[in-house]
């Protein structure tokens, strides 16, 4: 239990997707002009991460890892290592999960669907999603629960980051920014400063 809580807090603050690894920067920069749209995209990202990370974990554990096929063909599996296929399998899972989530949300929560709108399909090429799956594989998380918690935490961290920068950009619009820095330049610098603030969480260990 404590391990899970530790992982959860670390994935939100210490190993924040945006500030520590620069993942999902493209949509982070493109969709952070107003807080409302940022919120919509953030929630969609949490949603997809919460589903794809555990699914990719199961895929890695039972199909791709060295010797993972043992449940299927017994002893012979010890030598089979399919992990070189993981990029293509993960991206396929993500693309199809995004499609599936889109259809489910459209059917059962039309209000949420019209709010998320175009953001859902965009998420398939958001680096934060593939990044979370690859980090999950690299760190060798040991259980389904850990993978779920890691996905949820990374998503919440990303949401905090994008809402923060969207709020800052709404204010910046009324400030006298030097002309060459307007728009994207000042956003980079503001993100950098937010990142330095987030470094203070570095020592946290539960």
């Amino acid at each position, binding site marked *: 239990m404590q391990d899970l809580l530790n992982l959860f807090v670390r994935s939100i603050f210490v190993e924040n997707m945006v*500030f*520590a*690894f*620069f*993942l*999902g*920067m*493209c949509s982070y*920069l*493109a969709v952070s002009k107003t807080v409302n749209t940022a919120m919509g995209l953030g929630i969609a990202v949490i949603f997809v991460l919460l589903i794809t990370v555990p699914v990719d974990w199961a895929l890695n554990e039972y199909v791709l890892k060295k010797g993972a096929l043992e449940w299927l063909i017994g002893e012979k599996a010890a030598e089979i290592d399919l992990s*070189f*296929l*993981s*990029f*293509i399998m993960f*991206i*396929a899972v993500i*693309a199809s999960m995004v499609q599936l989530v889109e259809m489910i949300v459209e059917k059962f929560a039309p209000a949420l669907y019209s709010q998320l709108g175009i953001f859902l399909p965009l998420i*398939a*090429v*958001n*680096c934060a*999603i*593939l*990044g979370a799956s*690859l*980090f999950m594989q*690299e760190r060798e998380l040991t259980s389904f629960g850990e993978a779920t918690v890691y996905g949820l935490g990374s998503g919440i961290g990303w949401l905090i980051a994008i809402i923060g920068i969207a709020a800052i950009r709404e204010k910046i*619009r009324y400030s006298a*920014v*030097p*002309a*060459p*820095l*307007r*728009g*994207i*330049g*000042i956003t*980079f*610098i503001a*993100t*950098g*400063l*937010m*990142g*330095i603030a*987030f*470094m203070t969480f570095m020592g946290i260990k539960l």
Partner: protein
Amino acid sequence: MSKNSKLLTGPINLNNPITVQVLGICSALAVTVKLEPAIVMSISVIAVLALANVIISLLRNTIPSRIRIIVQLVVIAALVILVDQILKAYSPDVSKQLSVFVGLIITNCILMGRLEAFALGNKPWESFLDGIGNGSGYAIILIIVATVRELLGSGTLTLPAVGEIKVIPESFYQFGYENNGLMILPPMALIVVGIIIWVQRSKTRELIEEN
């Protein structure tokens, strides 16, 4: 001819993928603590981008437009797997430093962006040049950022095949010079890119955004 050379030089300054089109930031910044991984990453992206551009351009008349995204993802993913395996075989150290970021070339927005915007509508040779051009634009920013960060952060420059070179002489340290540890931390990459954008836009005024 001049049109072709424009394909090569355009993305290096006026249409730079990172500072102007704002594509591919995701994997760009995390690999810039040292120069060597930045150079290896740049070469990988140039190779994947040029080849993917050519392949998609060859297939452009046979891909049904409804499933083009999946076709593009599969082509990119296959090329990235190749690059990853080659890196693991020939330079395992760098491969370890780059960790997941080689895999993240797949979701690098430059690739999807160029395939969608250019390769789907142009001939293979032009697409190849476009890939090389945009890859180089990406590489230049990566190398500038990595040089600044490594020089100020560790006082060294690491080149592939040569190894680490000490640039700041020992006597400086004896006089009390200190490396700027802040430069090694991730947020400084963003600030360095911000400053590059600032410099570039004050040189070429037409890039300045409306408020």
